[in-house]
């Protein structure tokens, strides 16, 4: 709106607008801080040492991010109200080299430092390989189901042959019966692991990209066709946890779902026997 730059009417409307915008920014800060502090919507409790480390790193980041967010929004709110047009003349100021250098260095230290601190948790799950005695479970995604393969007593996974895949006929992975290693392989649609034992997952997919996700493990791994990707974890809390698919895989993506049960070692051995019996031809 073209107007002359002095005059009472533009000053009062500018005060109302400035006050309203400043109030909204303050409200934004209050609402955000309230719900994050109250943890109204939050992660489920972690069940791995790695998960606790991720949560600690999340909290460190949240504090830094929170301070940056609150101070920036409040500074904006303050400036909007304090420097509204009241007929004054603006102060001519083209910048300040010292301040530029200072806040550049400060943000480098803060942000990159935070990134370096996150290294440990990442190294634990991805740089360090699983222990040799970890239980191996093969995880296979296919439209729209998860299948979990246990190697059985021989500790060896049998050969797979894509030509033999027959989901409705009871061979969803195409397990080759001609291979003796496949005889005691157990293929089940749900997953069970013993508590406090390291488990190594061999994540793969048969058709399109899926993603294995267990919130309580703080773990997500895409299942990529043509690749076998290894991740590992040691669950410390018995219980039942959901495995939703986290990568868009087609029309049934939302219902691609399974469960992970963490149980005592005795229960785990019993479970394996029951499943093997139920799967016997």
């Amino acid at each position, binding site marked *: *709106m*073209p107007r002359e*730059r002095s005059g009472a009417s533009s000053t009062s409307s*500018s005060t109302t607008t400035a006050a309203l*915008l400043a109030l*909204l920014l303050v409200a934004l800060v209050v609402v955000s801080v309230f*719900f994050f502090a109250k943890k*109204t*919507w939050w*992660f*489920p409790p972690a069940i791995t040492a790695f998960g606790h480390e*991720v949560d600690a*790193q999340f909290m460190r980041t949240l504090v830094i*991010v929170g301070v940056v*967010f609150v101070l*920036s*929004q409040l500074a*904006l709110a303050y400036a909007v109200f304090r420097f*509204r*047009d009241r007929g004054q*003349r*603006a102060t*001519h*100021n*083209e*910048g*300040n080299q010292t301040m*530029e250098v200072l*806040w550049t260095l400060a*943000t480098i230290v803060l*942000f990159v430092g*935070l*990134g*370096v601190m*996150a*290294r440990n948790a*990442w190294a634990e*799950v*991805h740089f360090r390989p699983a222990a040799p005695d970890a239980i191996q479970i093969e995880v296979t995604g296919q*439209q729209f189901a998860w299948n979990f393969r246990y190697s059985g007593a021989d500790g060896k996974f049998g050969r797979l042959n*894509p030509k033999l*895949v027959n989901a409705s006929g009871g061979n969803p992975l195409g397990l080759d019966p001609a291979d003796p290693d496949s005889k005691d392989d157990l293929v089940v649609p749900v997953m069970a692991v013993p508590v406090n034992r390291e488990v190594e997952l061999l994540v793969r997919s048969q058709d*399109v*990209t899926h*993603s294995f*996700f267990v919130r309580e493990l703080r*773990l*997500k*791994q*895409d299942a990529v*066709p*043509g*690749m076998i990707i290894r991740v590992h974890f040691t669950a410390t809390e018995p219980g039942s946890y*959901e495995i939703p698919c*986290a*990568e*868009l895989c087609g*029309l049934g993506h*939302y*219902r691609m779902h399974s469960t992970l049960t963490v149980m005592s070692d005795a229960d785990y051995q019993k479970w394996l026997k029951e499943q093997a019996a139920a799967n016997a031809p």
Partner: protein
Amino acid sequence: MVTHDSEGAHAHAAPTGFIRKYIFSLDHKVIGIQYWLLALFSVFVGMFLSVMMRIHLVWPNAHIPFVENNQLTPEQYLALLTMHGSIMVFMVLTTAPQSGFGNYILPIQIGAADMAFPVLNMLSFWTTFLSLVVMISAFFVTGGAPISGWTAYPPLSALDAIAGPGQGAGQTLWVIGVAIFCGASLMGALNFITTIIDLRAKGMSLMRMPLTCWAWFVTAILGLLAFGVLLAACLLLLLDRTAGTSFFIPGGLVVSDKIIDHKGGSPLLWQHLFWFFGHPEVYIAILPGMGVASHILSTFSRKPVFGYRAMVHAICAIGFLGFCVWGHHMFVSGMSPYSAFAFSLLTMSIGVPSAIKTFNWLGTIWNGKIQFTCSMLFALGFVSLFVSGGVTGLFLAQPSIDLFFHDTYFVVGHFHLIMGVAAIFGIFAATYFWFPKMFGRHLNEGAGKLHFWLTFVGVYAIFLPTHWLGMVGHPRRYADLSGATFLYPLIPVQKFISIAAFITIGSQFIFLFNFLWSVKKGMKATDNPWHATTLEWSIPSPPPHDNFGGHIPVVYHGPYEFSVPGYADDYVPQHLAPEHVAKNKS
């Protein structure tokens, strides 16, 4: 720098026929408005798609009159999602800020009579238009639009309809549409870069360019380097789909118990190529908004941009780093964990130039004389949204934390705030600011303010709770909330988001009516209604066909000489010779 001492090689006479004047025009101003209108149409299409999605998500049994059985299916939800993302990213966020305003304003701001290649400019618009037509036509073929998301990850996007409805003809049209769009963007990028390097008026040194021009310049370079890669990726995907090649499809796949006859491809190859484009694309969408925000904050604070040089360096740093961080989209993809860690540190460092910009914006309005025009309100809103959307990036940039947040609604909230809504606020700020120049009339400020308040509150009401869904681990791209039990308690939050979205989208019609009304009936604009400094305000509103009436201006001042001590007015136009600037009488 080339200077023009005559009307020069780039001047062309004003056409008289309707078709040459308004349809196949060579005038950068008409082309700019054409791009802007294409984006306006597309943004309403995109919003309509999101309304359908939000309805389906929280009221899956709602009666939808114009679809089969009056109910949306999960695959239709995914088709809506794919097309919402594609149309918004390509047809709105890429076209309006860069090709729309860049085309209209850039040549005038640097003192040129037109873009360097007017015919190429016309071609790039009509190629974009063709791409929009091809993309939208995917809705009307057998199987409908693709369901693989705007990221189109193979093998889902590379297989045929066997992988899902929409993965047949619909996906093929999508790939062709995007490839055509890449061609259009490459033409545009070349034109922008050449124009800025070659056609600046005498005195318009690089460090006297408005920050808008710097942003358009760096964005054009990003476009030139990024769209070429996406074009290659799309052609390979098209070959996989139609010619039996296997760039992205590995061997041994079994879909619905059928063996797929491909071998040797890599799904990760697509992800690398796509995100090598996709991450710079985020900056293609947001950099022009940053330029516009700097420009408008300075103008309506009546103060120079704080730290102009630092701002230029930050734009360049963001542009460069933008090419070094694509791997942060792939932390859970199976990529080497060592490169993931490197990508993480590079991503954290892109926060540095972003923070520099934020501090400088605050420095610009500090001690200013803030005038709350609609355009200024949207620029201030841009700063708030940029901060809110930016800080959550610090979580996602850390691979260990991303293991939880990846592909959840936390990511949806993050990128909608920073790449979607902040960029849209940049577009609105630019629209309210330059509308008087483009159409010779003002948008109604009262309606504009109402539009701002509703939109500002609305977008936060939508996208703050979106982050909280992500805190609980809600996976994105779920057509139905019955898929996991931990989603049930989140349904009220989803409903709240849907209602907030309906209100926010509804309030965009205030803008639409304001636009339609003001074009004909708005208050007449003077040449320089905002008392601004850059060259576009030195010529009539709307400008004549060749912008400067054959007299290319000479530039004597930096772009943001506001409230300079000793001068009578609180602004010094760039083209005013020092001896003509009125001094204080003292």
